[in-house]
């Protein structure tokens, strides 16, 4: 098992390396460099621009160096925890991210829990009641769930929320808790607010999970061992939970890998529409104002976290299913 984990972590290093290259390309993609943006900002603030000072700054930040040297310098800084500086916010990128990333993670995890909590029982029901009215109903809802863009669902929910409460943004806390220090009351308040974005983000994933769960369980239910168990008089409920359900759960657990990227996408859109203080508005703002250090870092962080999440789900899967440990 330890060997499996070590191999998987080794395999991830080149992938993270590619992620860093792509993030760097994004930072470098817009015309002009960091200093040009800085000069523009100075001009906008009507401050004096001293060409000599700019040139010395260029030298200091190594902007006159060739691209690959700049890349390695940037990578070195990142490994030391320095993600660069946001021009728009005039703050270190790492601080900006630290303020907002936890909320993005909280929403993603909550929506993952929501998706599984809903998909597993529905998949179980659909498979054991194949071609029943309920099965068809869930399949139809699932199809519509797959076809509805997250942001549209978020918009619909926000609309109802606005009509019901008169607030234009959902928020993560009630007013009295926004600046309050952490307490049990604040935590409960967070739970009362976070379910809404979690439902919005989780819906699309739920539909896919139901299909996987249903298909797997249907396959297992036809196996001879189910018939054997039934013939020796095991009750239907016990039989289901004890044998086919456990086997059918394995592929469901492995879907976390491809659910995570979709989750990040959904979280971005839902937060934008619902006006949540997550990484999404920060990212869009950075892109629109060409604050590329911030934007590139966000792409880097989101991709890395997704990869790490996939790694964790693989390890869990290998722990559940010994066959996988030998495969890689």
């Amino acid at each position, binding site marked *: 098992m330890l060997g499996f984990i070590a191999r998987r972590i080794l395999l991830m290093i*080149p*992938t993270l390396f*590619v*992620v860093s290259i*792509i993030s760097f390309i*994004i930072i470098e*993609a*817009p*015309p002009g460099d960091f200093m040009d943006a800085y000069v523009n900002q100075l001009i906008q603030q009507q401050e004096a621009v001293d060409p000599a000072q700019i040139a010395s700054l260029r030298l200091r930040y190594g902007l006159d160096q060739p691209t690959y040297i700049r890349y390695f310098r940037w990578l070195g800084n990142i490994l030391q925890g320095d993600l660069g500086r946001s021009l728009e916010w005039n703050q270190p990128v790492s601080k900006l991210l630290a303020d907002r990333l936890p909320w993005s993670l909280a929403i993603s995890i909550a929506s993952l829990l929501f998706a599984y909590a809903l998909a597993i029982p529905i998949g179980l029901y659909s498979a054991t009641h194949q071609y029943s009215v309920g099965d068809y109903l869930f399949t139809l809802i699932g*199809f*519509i769930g*797959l*076809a*509805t*863009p997250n*942001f*549209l669902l978020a*918009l*619909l929910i*926000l*609309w109802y929320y*606005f*009509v019901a409460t008169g607030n*234009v943004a959902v928020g993560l806390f009630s007013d009295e808790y926004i600046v309050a220090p952490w307490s049990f009351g604040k935590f409960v308040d967070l739970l009362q607010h976070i379910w809404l974005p979690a439902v919005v983000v989780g819906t699309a994933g739920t539909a896919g999970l139901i299909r996987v769960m249903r298909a797997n369980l249907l396959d297992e239910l036809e196996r001879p061992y189910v018939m054997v168990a039934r013939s020796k008089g095991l009750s239907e409920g016990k039989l289901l939970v004890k044998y086919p359900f456990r086997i059918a759960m394995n592929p469901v657990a492995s879907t976390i*890998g*491809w659910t*995570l*990227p*979709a989750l*990040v*996408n959904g979280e*971005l*859109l839902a937060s*934008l*529409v619902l006006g949540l203080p997550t990484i999404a508005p920060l*990212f*869009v703002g950075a*892109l*629109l104002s*060409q604050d590329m250090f911030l*934007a*590139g870092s*966000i*792409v880097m962080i*989101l*991709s890395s976290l*997704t*990869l790490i999440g*996939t790694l964790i789900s693989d390890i869990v899967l290998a722990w559940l299913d010994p066959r996988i440990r030998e495969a890689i």
Partner: protein
Amino acid sequence: MAVMEERIPTGGKAPSPTTDDTLLVATQWQLIRWKFLRHRVAVAALAVIVLFYLAAIFAEFLSPYDPTHHDTDYMFMPPQRVHFRENGVWQRPFVYGMTSEMDMATFRTTYEVDPTQKFPIHFFVKGDPYTMWGLFESDIHLLGVEEGTFFLLGTDKMGRDLLSRIIYGGRISLSVGLLGIAISFIIGIVMGGISGYYGGVTDLIIQRIIEFLRSIPTLPLWMALSVALPPTWSVVQTYFGIVVILSLVGWTGLARVVRGKFMSLREEEYIMAAQLNGSNEARIIFKHMLPSFTSHVIASLTLSVPGMILGETALSFIGLGLQAPAISWGVLLKDAQRIIVLADSPWLLAPGLFVIVAILCFNFVGDGLRDAADPYASI
């Protein structure tokens, strides 16, 4: 062909291969067509998709107004209902006019149905002039009213007809899907083909790239790349830029299907026979291997259209895709983003309904095609 359909009625029992030789002599495409036609939902969905595309193609003629035709007298006007009878008497369909009133305290215009104004709906009415496909000049619209207003889905903030804008928006939103998969198709088939045919180190590298692209979230990448498109580009250039960005990330699913097929076909005897006969690689790939999995490729192409449409809609909705003079469903939905506006004018969400229906239909058709293309499924 007529005989075939008589013997294998849609939804009915198929003749068994031993007693009826129509099945034995049928070509692969005939088999696929029969199987697909039995998939009622998929056939209906295909019909809807065809209608959508026809509407987009003939947008100038079908839309009641020019999409840029604006009138400040009719800002945020709610949809007008089509009536078929008045005082219990059936008659030519008509719409009632609306009277507007400005609330001087809030400066909001409220509309009231005015039953004294009646505008009958006519076919082939003269309206805004247009140049069909840039070729024929005309001012005939399929449906419309001769006087008064005809806003079946209401109007937007500038008093433009939402229905007309949705029909025109379909041109961009629906063609993004087709053009996007055309580009993904080329990348996917080349990469998947190379990967599956040669195997070894090449395969390993391409597989790593695919795995990588599939394991990172696409939206942040799309967003960041679309910002890199020069702001000086025209609408058409931006449109193509967005499509290329969507396809650069979206080709992986298809490459996987192609690779898997190449892998399994490479082991077949008839490929070895072709190699022994001295066929070159291009001939083996295009003449012998490709035809045997074209149907699968078409099915997975159909299933990847929704992702493209959703991608464009989401990007434009955020404001990083196509921008305002361009009309796409995402651009139209952007108007609904401000919740205060939306609460007063819920009809602004109508483009979203079109997005959902289009994606739903592509999913149904794709599923139907995939089942129909599976040669091992019982007919």
